[in-house]
């Protein structure tokens, strides 16, 4: 029994000695240093980009501009709208216009100052709803109203359902642009050998990077090798494709010398962001406390390029309805271009924004109707066997247990201090990737060592340790004999991506399949040696075991004249919803989480202090309790950032606070005095990811607790002291 044990991360020693081989440590022979020259205009025609003076700087080897790009100058996960560097036009402040490779970073930086760029400014638009209005500046001519994606969910007769309602609530909730802010920035290095490209990159999606580079450069998949060392945090910001095309395109001009880019903190803020969102919920309820209908309208600010948004906007649609029984639901989820940096996945992707909306409105409804917010939720939460607005049946549903578990921790007497303390709750329901595939390859050597080749990215979540634990239990091998290698697309088999909390389930099942095949082989090979039929044998701690005798895996191989034994496993799902109606199966598993907050509000300053927080996620079966607790805790703490403090503030499209002084993220002083983590397990024992489940409930749980404490409702994140104070003043008429 290794699953369920809190073994330390496999490379713990490296993690406490500073020896983890992050991308920033990578040094290659003859390596050049890269620097990006970025747009200072939010929207402009590029009249001229003159690199003459920059090329004269000693040490400059190559400069890439839009002129160098051929037919495949544009890339994107779903819409190829983003130039590798800008071609003829820029659409946000910070957009790459040129990239320099030099012998030293200082030479590259000096050259960057000498590139002359002539802009002809165009009108800009920064707000998503404004961008959809007639007469707004158009960013991409193909999309006349700047809407690049409109995802629709149509379920039930809305007019009839709203007519049945006793009360109809309509509220709009907003979230601003925020940043993933992994401490390790985006780092990539590329080197060409003829028509073969090797790219080392801090990415959550090595095979997406490979596919994209294959398309851009028109080369075969096996000509692109993507190597990903452990990440210093990802949180969605390193998902999909980011700077890799630029790095590879510049490296193509350096005669085979490698070029490495390390983005600065300021560059991080214009490379990928969390979608700003405006979400309007119109919800019909009956006096008996049940729902009749919900209409959801969402504007996602995608920034200047679609990036991953065409995939995320439909995901955000199904994630906007909430975990409650509602007979009629319509959702319109719009992905909109604006002159801001492109948005991408942000831990708890899209659910962070949608849960903010639907869980805030739950309390607004409950308070107006005179119901207890907790009881109102419990009355309406889904249970197994019910059907979601997509029409799909829900399985292994544990919303109530999650909410009960997190609420229980706050059940003790509420400290009352002149009514300034309050409690609030939040529940969330999140899909994972509907169609995806994971493959795993397992190699046993004749010394009994087991190597897993996997493209799951280790980014701090403990993905590699999790897989090793699954092998130890499923194959019956000692944990100490197991090594995990990858991702390296030349060596490790396919995996869609390390995101959406999918690895434990998807890669976990691929690993289980590989272990199953290997175990079967070992029993077959061991049977004649142990003089017993395979079905009377088992494996344990690296041995094939019969009733009275056992033989080590290594000796099973040696006695069969085998040096190695390799087996592969695969797990995939192929699901999805109809693009016009949103009907179908949105996900192989619905992620479930809840949170309960107890806050104190200082009515003199508006300052909110989180006194206690309790978070619960549904894990199915916990692989490693300590790592699960770290994920739950980490989600709450990460979530407190956008809840209380995080917002990129733009002025004319220019980020004004792109640094960790003016854009604060939670420190050890910002965490609740008491933080409790609970993982809910199920009889079915299926392993599910828990990388995000306790994050989205944080913001609404805190806002709901604030209203409970002082009777004001904040609908726009982040909940700063200023906003609370203003609301308190408005309430008291001061």
């Amino acid at each position, binding site marked *: 029994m290794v699953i369920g044990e809190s073994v330390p991360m496999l490379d713990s020693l490296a993690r406490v000695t500073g020896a983890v081989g992050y991308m*920033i440590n990578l040094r290659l022979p003859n390596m050049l240093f890269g620097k990006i020259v970025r747009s200072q205009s939010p929207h402009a025609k590029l009249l001229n980009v003159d690199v003459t003076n920059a090329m004269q700087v000693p040490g400059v080897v190559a400069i890439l501009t839009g002129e160098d790009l051929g037919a495949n100058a544009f890339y994107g996960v779903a819409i190829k709208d983003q130039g590798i560097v800008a071609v003829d036009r820029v659409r946000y402040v910070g957009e790459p216009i040129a990239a320099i490779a030099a012998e030293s970073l200082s030479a590259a930086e000096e050259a960057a100052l000498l590139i002359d760029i002539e802009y002809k400014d165009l009108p800009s638009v920064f707000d998503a709803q404004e961008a959809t209005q007639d007469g707004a500046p158009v960013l991409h001519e193909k999309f006349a109203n700047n809407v690049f994606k409109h995802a629709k969910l149509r379920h039930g007769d809305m007019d009839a359902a709203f007519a049945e309602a006793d009360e109809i609530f309509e509220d709009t909730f907003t979230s601003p642009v925020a940043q993933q802010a992994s401490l390790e920035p985006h780092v990539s290095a590329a080197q060409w050998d003829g028509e073969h490209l090797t790219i080392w990159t801090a990415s959550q999606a090595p095979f997406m990077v490979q596919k994209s580079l294959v398309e851009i450069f028109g080369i075969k998949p096996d000509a692109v090798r993507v190597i990903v060392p452990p990440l210093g945090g990802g949180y969605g910001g390193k998902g999909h494709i980011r700077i890799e095309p630029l790095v590879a395109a510049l490296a193509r001009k350096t005669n085979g010398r490698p070029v490495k880019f390390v983005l600065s903190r300021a560059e991080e803020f214009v490379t990928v962001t969390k979608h700003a969102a405006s979400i309007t919920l119109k919800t019909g309820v009956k006096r008996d406390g049940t729902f009749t209908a919900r209409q959801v309208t969402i504007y996602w600010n995608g920034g200047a390029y679609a990036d991953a948004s065409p995939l995320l906007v439909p995901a955000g649609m199904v994630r906007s309805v909430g975990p409650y029984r509602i007979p009629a639901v319509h959702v319109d989820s719009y992905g909109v271009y604006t002159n801001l940096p492109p948005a991408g996945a942000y831990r708890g992707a899209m659910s962070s924004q949608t849960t903010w909306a639907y869980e805030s409105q739950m309390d607004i409804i409950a308070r107006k109707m005179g119901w207890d917010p907790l009881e109102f939720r419990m009355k309406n939460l889904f249970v197994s066997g019910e059907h979601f607005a997509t029409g799909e049946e829900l399985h292994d549903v544990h919303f109530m247990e999650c909410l009960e578990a997190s609420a229980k921790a706050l059940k003790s007497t509420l400290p009352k201090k002149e009514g300034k303390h309050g409690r609030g709750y939040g529940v969330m329901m999140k899909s994972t990737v509907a169609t995806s595939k994971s493959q795993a390859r397992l190699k046993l050597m004749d010394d009994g060592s087991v190597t897993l080749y996997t493209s799951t990215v280790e980014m*701090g979540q403990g993905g590699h340790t999790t897989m090793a634990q699954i092998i130890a239990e499923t194959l019956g091998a000692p944990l100490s004999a197991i090594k995990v290698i990858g991702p390296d697309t030349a060596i490790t088999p396919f995996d869609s991506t390390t995101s959406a909390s999918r690895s434990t389930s998807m890669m976990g099942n691929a690993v289980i399949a590989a272990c199953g095949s290997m175990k079967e082989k070992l029993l077959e090979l061991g049977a004649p040696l142990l003089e017993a039929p395979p079905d009377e044998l088992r494996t344990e701690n690296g041995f094939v075991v019969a009733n009275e005798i056992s033989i080590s895996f290594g000796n099973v191989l040696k006695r069969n004249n085998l040096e190695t034994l390799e087996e592969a496993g695969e797990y995939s799902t192929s699901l999805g919803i109809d693009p016009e109606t949103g009907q179908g199966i949105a996900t192989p598993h619905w992620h479930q989480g809840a949170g309960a907050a107890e806050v104190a509000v200082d009515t003199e300053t508006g300052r909110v202090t989180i006194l206690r927080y309790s978070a619960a996620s549904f894990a199915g079966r916990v692989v490693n309790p300590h*790592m699960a607790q770290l994920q739950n805790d980490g989600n709450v703490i990460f979530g407190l950032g956008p809840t209380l403090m995080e917002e990129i503030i733009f002025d004319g499209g220019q980020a004004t606070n792109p640094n*960790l002084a003016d854009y604060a993220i939670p420190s050890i002083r910002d965490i609740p005095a008491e933080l409790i983590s609970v993982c809910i397990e199920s009889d079915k024992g299926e392993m599910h990811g828990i990388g995000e489940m306790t994050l989205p409930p944080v913001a609404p749980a805190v806002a709901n607790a604030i209203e409970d404490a002082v009777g004001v409702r904040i609908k726009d994140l982040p909940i700063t002291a200023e906003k609370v104070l203003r609301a308190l003043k408005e309430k008291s008429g001061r």
Partner: protein
Amino acid sequence: MILKVNGSRYEVQEGTRTLLEVLRDDLNLVGAKEGCGIGMCGACTVLVDGKPVSGCLTLAAQVAGKEIFTVEGLVEDGKLHPIQQAFIDERAFQCAYCTPGFILSAFALLEENPNPSEDEIREYLSGNLCRCGSYQNIMKAVVEAGARLNKR
């Protein structure tokens, strides 16, 4: 000029480079890392004469001749320092990009104050950021490390 790092003396080129650049690029001591470049995140924390400083804000020339200590100096005779062991035992990291900085801040704290209260620990470590949010376990690790060091 001479830099004294982890008890060894290194001849390094004079110039305007930061301590962090010299440690990483010249001395191959890569435990300290840049996170923000402005002394806010603590990922580049090293000790100078026992005090934690941001390697990204300190010019190497400013600390010539002083005692510089990095995470690489903590392992003695192949044995982890009790703070490092406590970080493993309490699972006080996830991506671990910030971990060397936290360990060195904790080291300086426990040298200064062998019996810190939780408030004192929070105050002392507030200049080190962990985006993965492992703070609860970091707190446990520092308390545990303090207890172990006091027993030595």
